[in-house]
Each structure stands twice: as structure tokens, then as C-alpha cells.
């Protein structure tokens, strides 16, 4: 995306017509990008050293079964024709069927996505809740011990492999201490009693008044969400710090100080309000980043979300599912970038170039 950098965004025109033009241009960009995504995934799908027919019919199928599946999968047609089929199907939301589940990929993804959404959302909430205040603290105490500590804590978050922290977390907090619940989204005993409406178990259990199940879901969520939260906190606190530093150096802050405005008001009201504009885009971006983090986290926590679906399909050479999943994540990624870009324009119509 041409817009991943909040610094690059901004406009020369007034908010509204600018927004219109920008949206138009972005829609075009997204269209082209989407085509490219499809092409890349299609290409990957064709060079896999796996016999897709074999994957579909199994090792012990007879030759006649094999041949029938070969034709059914359209493998007898030329490549460009296959791409055309893939393209037109994808545009109507048909990404093919999963070899594993035998269901349309789109259906599968719709089923597993809420789990990832719940996890990533919890993660981003925790990350923002801790990241913003820590970033502000760090900026205010620039160079002091508090700043150093916050930076090191952030760097640790950047440096540790998330799957490893997850494993250790499970070992310590679940196996040894028993503070949190184990892998999975909910105890198996509850699983069957909760009707999935939204697929977001916290909301579902709350709506159905099953408070013990709700508590159970929360206990399951605590560790993986905490982990993802920590990782996004590292990023958010760092960005908050730099935005705040930039704001605090602005003239209006000095003016305010001269006028005798209370220091806490300067920091938390004046500076943070302005820093919040680029911060929103940062948070949207790190939300997208959590999608990526979820692949590894879900593997460790047996979390039945998109990440686990993807790795599972990968290990079983279910290429339709892998590519479908990759495509969907790509689209969400583009969408979030687009959203953050638009948010930025809406929140901050001023010309802003640094």
C-alpha cells in the first residue's frame, strides 16, 4: 500500500473533495492490488510440488477415481484458462473447496475468523491501554530512567519469539500455577452448551447469560491476548513516544507553558490530542500486524482461528485453503491500511508534512 506510512498521508485540498478523490484513487489501487494478490496466489498454487488430485482423492484411490478428480479440478485445461476460472470464481466469492473440510473456503474462513477477531481485538485493546500511557511517560521523561525502562521493555517485546513466550507462558501460568485456562477458546465441557451467534464467545456467552462460561472464555483469552497485547504495546508505546516528542517540541506547547497552563493539562490534553491523530493510524496498522502474530500464537494455544486454519491447511497441502486464507488476510490488510488512511484524512484535514 502506498499508505502504510502515516507520515506520507495528508492532503493539499480541503477535507471533503480531497477525501472523494483519495477514495477514488484508493479504490483503484485496491482493485489493482487485489488482482495482483490473486495472481500471486494462483501462481504459488501451480508450482507446489504436490499432486492436487492425490491430495483430493487419497493414496489408495483407483485410477478411474483419480482421473475423474483430475478433470473435475480443471487440471486438463491450459494455464491461462485455469487462471481465468480462478479469477472469475474469486470475484464471486468462490475460492474453491477445502480438501480437508470439503466445504467452500469462504465458509470455512467465515467460521474461523471470529476466533481470530476476538483474540486480536482483545490484544489491541490491551496494547493500547498500556502502550499509550507508557509512550507518553517515556516521552515526558525522555532520557531518564523511566524512558529507558519503557524502551527496553518495548525492545524485549520486539525481540522475543512470540511462540516461545507463549509456550513458556503456558508452562508457567497454566501448567504450574493454574492461574489461567489452557489452550483453546473455552473448556470443552462448555463448548457444546454455548450457541455461537456472533462467533465472538465473550459476546455470545454474555448475551446468553452464561456467566460461568463467560468467565471461562476470559480465562482462556487472558494469556494469548496478553501476549499479543504485549507485542502491540511495544510498537504503540514506541510510536506514541515519538509522536509525543514531536508535539511537545511544537510552539503551541511552549506558548501554553508560558501562559501557565498546568503541565498535566499540556501533556494529556493538548499534546496527546494532537498526537492521537497519527496514533489512530498506528493502532489500525498494528491491529493488522496482530493478524500476522496470530498465526504463531494460535498454533501454540490451539486457538481455532484463521492462523491455525492456515497452518493446518499448509501441513496437509490443502493449497486452496492456504491461498484462500492468504488472500483473505491480504484483503483485510489492504482494507485496514485503507481505513487507517481514511481515518487519518478525516481526523486531520490540515496540511501536514514532516
Amino acid at each position, binding site marked *: 500500500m502506498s499508505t502504510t506510512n502515516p507520515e506520507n498521508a495528508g492532503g493539499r485540498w480541503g477535507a471533503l473533495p480531497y477525501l472523494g478523490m483519495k477514495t477514488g484513487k484508493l479504490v483503484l489501487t485496491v482493485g489493482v492490488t487485489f488482482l495482483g494478490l490473486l495472481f500471486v496466489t494462483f501462481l504459488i498454487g501451480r508450482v507446489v*510440488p*504436490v*499432486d492436487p488430485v*492425490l*491430495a483430493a*482423492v*487419497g*493414496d*489408495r*484411490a*483407483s*485410477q*478411474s*477415481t483419480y482421473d475423474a478428480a483430475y478433470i473435475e479440478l480443471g487440471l486438463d485445461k491450459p494455464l491461462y484458462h485455469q487462471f481465468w476460472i480462478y479469477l472469475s470464481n474469486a470475484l464471486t466469492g468462490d475460492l474453491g473447496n*477445502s*480438501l*480437508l*473440510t*470439503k*466445504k467452500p473456503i469462504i465458509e*470455512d474462513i467465515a467460521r474461523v475468523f471470529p476466533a481470530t477477531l476476538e483474540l486480536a481485538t482483545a490484544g489491541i485493546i*490491551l496494547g493500547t*491501554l*498500556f502502550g499509550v*500511557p*507508557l509512550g*507518553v*511517560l517515556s516521552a*515526558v521523561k525522555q532520557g531518564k530512567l523511566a524512558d529507558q525502562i519503557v524502551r527496553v521493555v518495548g525492545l524485549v517485546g520486539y525481540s522475543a519469539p512470540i511462540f516461545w513466550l507463549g509456550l513458556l507462558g*503456558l508452562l508457567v501460568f*497454566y501448567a504450574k500455577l*493454574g*492461574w*489461567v*485456562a*489452557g*489452550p*483453546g477458546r473455552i*473448556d*470443552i*465441557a462448555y*463448548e*457444546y452448551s454455548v450457541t455461537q451467534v456472533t462467533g465472538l464467545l465473550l459476546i455470545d456467552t454474555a448475551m446468553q447469560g452464561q456467566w460461568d462460561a463467560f468467565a*471461562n472464555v*476470559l*480465562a482462556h*483469552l*487472558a494469556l494469548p*491476548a*496478553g501476549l499479543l497485547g504485549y507485542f502491540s504495546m511495544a510498537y504503540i508505546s514506541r510510536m506514541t513516544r515519538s509522536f509525543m516528542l514531536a508535539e511537545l517540541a511544537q510552539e503551541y506547547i511552549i506558548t501554553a507553558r508560558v501562559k501557565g497552563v498546568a*503541565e*498535566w493539562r499540556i*501533556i*494529556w490534553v493538548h499534546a496527546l490530542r494532537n498526537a492521537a491523530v497519527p496514533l489512530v493510524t498506528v493502532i489500525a496498522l498494528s491491529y493488522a500486524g496482530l493478524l500476522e502474530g496470530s498465526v504463531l500464537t494460535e498454533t501454540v494455544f*490451539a486457538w*481455532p482461528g484463521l492462523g491455525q486454519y492456515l497452518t*493446518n491447511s*499448509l*501441513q*496437509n497441502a490443502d493449497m486452496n485453503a492456504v491461498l484462500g486464507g492468504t488472500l483473505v488476510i491480504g484483503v483485510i490488510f489492504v482494507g485496514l491500511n485503507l481505513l487507517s488512511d481514511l481515518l487519518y484524512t478525516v481526523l486531520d484535514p490540515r496540511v501536514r508534512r514532516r
Partner: protein
Amino acid sequence: MKHVPRLLAAAAMTAVIALPFAPAQAETPADTLIQAWTIDDVITLDPAEVFEFTASEVLGNSYQPLVGYDVNDVSDIFGVIAEKWEISEDGKTFTFTIRRDMQFASGNPITAEDAVFSLTRAIKLDKSPAFILTQFGFSADNVDDMIRQTGDMTFEFEMDKPYAPTLVLYCLTATIGFIVDKELVMANEANGDFGYDWLKTNYAGSGAFTIRDWRANELIVLERNPNFSGEAPAMARAIYRHIPEGATQRLLLEQGDIDIARNLGAEEITALADSEDVKIESGVKGSIYYMGLNQKNEYLAKPEVRQAMKYLVDYATIADTIMKGKVQVHQAFLPKGFLGALEDTPFALNVEKAKELLAEAGLPEGFSVTMDVRNTPEITAISEVIQQTMAEAGIQMELIPGDGQQTLTKYRARNHDIYIGRWGPDYQDPHTNADTFARNPDNADDAASKPLAWRNAWDIPEMTAKADAAVLEKDTATRADMYIALQEEHQQVSPFVIMFQEIEVFGMRKDVNGFIIGPSFNDNSFRAVTKDR
């Protein structure tokens, strides 16, 4: 700036609130059996298509076959849906009589029509396991004439040759022989597919449990069948939960979140052995771990090299350490528990002997070779140990890991040097493994059938004839002797280094009783399970 700490404190509080929902020692519901198992191989629930371990077990508990066998003595074959059967003079036709007053879970009565429908349907659909039935000379074109209903409760089953009766009956105990509810299935037919699309994810059987729900890679839920003809099971519900990791399963088991863990590794088994709440039960399964040496490789084609490799696996140590409790040493193609199984283990690690053999083959310095390894933890670990012992005799083995489909694609194209893998029998008769390990009717690259002997390019017209003769032998004792002789020869000359037989291990909560672990996966039964709390 006083406000900074205050805000931090508030944030910290929020996090702390989220934490202390510490789960108490959990307990599963008294009427529900919860098992953790890797169920990502389930791709269908249709008996005409099921071929996977997990789905077989699910069907074994929810469908019924015409005939069954005693899991403790597989030679004792008895009727289940069939009350009795007769074999014609020429040995080519079976006449089955269906037991009266049985019904499907739907309430429909079970008749000969359902039995004929189930078998012809499986043959016409021609899915992966169809060969288990079509090997008796059936095809989509002739099956309507060969398997024919002769009365409300009787039907005839006519084959092209007088196959050994045990072979026929054992094949009918496989999941493909399970009887489906014709009325229910046909009510859900679309475009003449015999209800194939529908039955993939639905249920039309008569077993002790009904399949209530299957969510791929998540769970399978079974519920007690109120119309079951036998004794009603104690469990109202049985749930399989997909948990891929053995270590995770163990944690859940120890915490009491599940009743049974199905994928425990050797270390977990050892660790759980002293647990107060958990017991370990196990049963010998038919799966065999082996290495296939491709005869297209110039080194591996030498008989002395094949023999040397059989002396370069440290069978005992592997079975006692990394695979402890999960395998036993076994070196013939018929697993223990099968008719005619050979239990001799003539090979053990003997580097000197292997070096002599290699010298005889003109390769005193050894040679380099690759091995395709499916990247599961256990196969990988076994391979790494074999790699080390091979190196002691100068054989430099490079491991090429890949996922299941990749290694299989390569193996079936005969592009490997060595393939290490696991083979599970398809039904309870010895022919199932003889067919693949000791038969290769056509060694051409474009052969129609691809048994393991073909995949390793092992051309054996004489042994193929011997295996074919054993299929037609009526006398069970003579037949068993034929298989033993076949294996004794095979063990010495074949390009298969057969190493272990699998032991299936169950970690169970102490209060779970009555789980029957059978020799094949569709024999694993929780019909009689009780929880004695």
C-alpha cells in the same frame, strides 16, 4: 505529572481484573465422554469414502456392519446385522440373511434392501476404499446383477472367483461394508449422487451412537442412539476435540478437562505413569513402520545392500527410548494379531555384519543415499537415529523432509531413494498387506495399480503368484501357513526394512472404564464406557 502513575495503575488494574479467573480443578460432565485427538484427517463421514483412522473409529461407534469379529480373537467371526450366511458349492456366492426387528436411528427398519443398497452404492461411487469390495470382481456395471436382493431379509453376493471366505467376511467388517439407511440417504439425493454430498457431513446409521455434529478440525459430537438394538450406552454424549499436541493433551488430561488423551508421546506416557488421576491403557494396532528401498537406485538394488540396511537399524533402542510404549519391534509384513502373522525378529543392530555385507556388494566404503521423511515428530526422530547408525557403516543418509502429501507424491512417482513411513492395513485379512508388500502384477512405470512393491520398483512375478494363490485357499490353517512361508522369504529378500508395529496408547482419567481398544480403528469402542465417580 502525578497523573501518569495513576493512569498506569488504572491500566494495570484492568489487566489484573482479567487474570484471576483461575479455573478450579475441572471435571467433565458425568454423562459425556470427552476425548482429545488429532482429527484433522477427517474429510468425510460417508462409509463409502471413509478411510482415515479417526473417521473409521467414529463410524465404528455409529454404524453397524453385516458381520463383526471378536476383538480379542479375530478368528471368531459373527453376524451383526446379518443373522447368518451360507456359501454356495462353488464357493462364489454368499447368501446373507438379515436379523429381524432391527432399526436405524431414524426409526426405519433394517432390511436386505438397505444392505444391498449400501454395498452397491459404495461400488458405484467408487471412492478410495472401494477396491476392498471391487477386488471380488464387482464394477459399477455388473454390481446390480452380482449383489441381488432375494427376499425382504435375504440377499446374494456373487463373486468372480471362489475367494477364501475369511477374506470376504473380513472385508465386510471394514467401514465400507457398514449399512446405511437407504430411505434416509435417498431422501437427500441430488443429481443421482446416491446422497453422497449429504452423507459427507450427515449420518444415516444404526450404531450405538448417532453423529450429531462434525466441525472440521474442531470437534465431532456423538449422541446416544435411542433406537439402538443393543444395550443402551451409559454415555449420553461423546465428544472428540481436535487437540494437535500431545503435550497439550496431557495438560488437559491432568487438569481433568478431558477424559481421554489419544496422541500422547513416549515422554508423556512415562510422565503420566505415576499419576494418581490418570491411567494408561494400550492396544496393539495393525500399523507398521517400514523403510522402502527403491530398486531403481543402483546401490539399493543390490541384495547385500538391502540385507545390510536391515542390520543397521537399532530396533530395540528406538522401541525402548524415543518410541517407548508406542511401538514394538516387528519385522514381517503381517502385523501381530492377523491370521498367519510372523513374529520372528531376525534382525538387530549389527554394524560389523552390515560392513561385511557391504564389502560383498563391492561397497566397502559405503555410499550416499537420500531418505524422504514425513515431517511428523516421531518419524523425524526415528529417521535421525537411523541416520546415525547407517553412518557407522559408511552409509551417508541425507534426510529430505516434506509434508505428508509431498513425500507421498514423490513416493508414488518412484522418485525417492528411501521412503520411511507407516502403513496401516485396510481390513483385518492378511491379504490386505500381502497385496501391497508382496504383489506387483505390473512393474511398468504406467501400471494401473501402485502397491508398495511397485512404488519401490520391486519386480516379483513369482511372489505375486504365491500371494494370489493364498487368496483362494479355503482352508484357514493352510492359508495361514502359506502366509508365514511368504513372509519368511519376504523378510530376507524384500526391499522393505520392516521395523515396528504400532501400539495405540490411551491416557485416561481413572474413573473411565470399559473402553475397548480393538486391533483396527473401527474396533475402538466406547459403547460400554462408564464413569465411576
